[in-house]
């Protein structure tokens, strides 16, 4: 998978509010959470939660490990960091541009005021 495909997967996985809530919950819990822990706050059945976990797993956003009958889910922060970094590049680009735009427009405004006197 190249970077663009990875980003697509990450963003697609994040489009769903339940999946975002699951990630937020995992972020709070460094030791990971069980599938039933994750299902509890949501008004959905276990199979639906499993489906969301499959999508998050495919996107590399979580890992699952099994011990006996218990599956522990942990956050895998790298893909999200990569997605954030990608968005931040655009943010830096436009932020710096708009700072200069403001300076330029303010100089133009000062000129216009002087011209009116």
């Amino acid at each position, binding site marked *: 998978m190249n970077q663009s495909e990875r980003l697509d997967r990450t963003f697609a996985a994040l489009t769903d509010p339940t999946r975002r809530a699951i990630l937020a919950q995992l972020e709070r819990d460094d030791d990971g959470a069980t599938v039933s822990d994750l299902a509890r706050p949501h008004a959905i059945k276990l199979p639906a939660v499993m489906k969301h976990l499959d999508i998050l797993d495919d996107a590399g956003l979580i890992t699952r490990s099994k011990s006996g009958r218990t599956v522990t889910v942990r956050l895998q922060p790298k893909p999200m960091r990569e997605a954030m970094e990608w968005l*931040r590049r655009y943010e830096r680009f436009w932020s710096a541009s708009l700072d200069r735009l403001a300076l*330029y427009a303010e100089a*133009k405004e000062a000129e216009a005021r002087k011209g009116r006197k």
Partner: protein
Amino acid sequence: MTSLTLVRRIRARPSIVFDALVTAEGIAQWWGPDAGPVLIAEADARIGGRFKVRFRLLDGTEHESTGEYLEIAKPERVKMTWRWTYGGADPGESLIEMSLRPVAEGTELTFTHSRLQDEESSRSHEAGWSGALDKLEAIFARGAAGPSR
């Protein structure tokens, strides 16, 4: 839909800010992420008209983007498509919308760059994305994900 919104308050009237946004003369003064020069600035600010901007970064690399104006409503709103055409990977066409609102000190500019994600995959997910960036930031507010301003 992947999008980024920035808001700036500028001490200049909306018509002046508007001209700075859509004229070649204006664009040449501000476009680009560092103090490197704008090499080409062309802007035909009417619906269906095109713009082209090429700039050189301080590291010496050159980048160019072009697009088409979709909406021009002076001095309130500009909408245009946007695409990298030189100097890096092309992630596809995205959309820029700039709204200007008069405020006491001058103008409040709201700048939105949207559809940043590859169009093919974003189409089916557009409805769900909005606000996800905020959530992402919230999730990482605690972590060392990067700078916060």
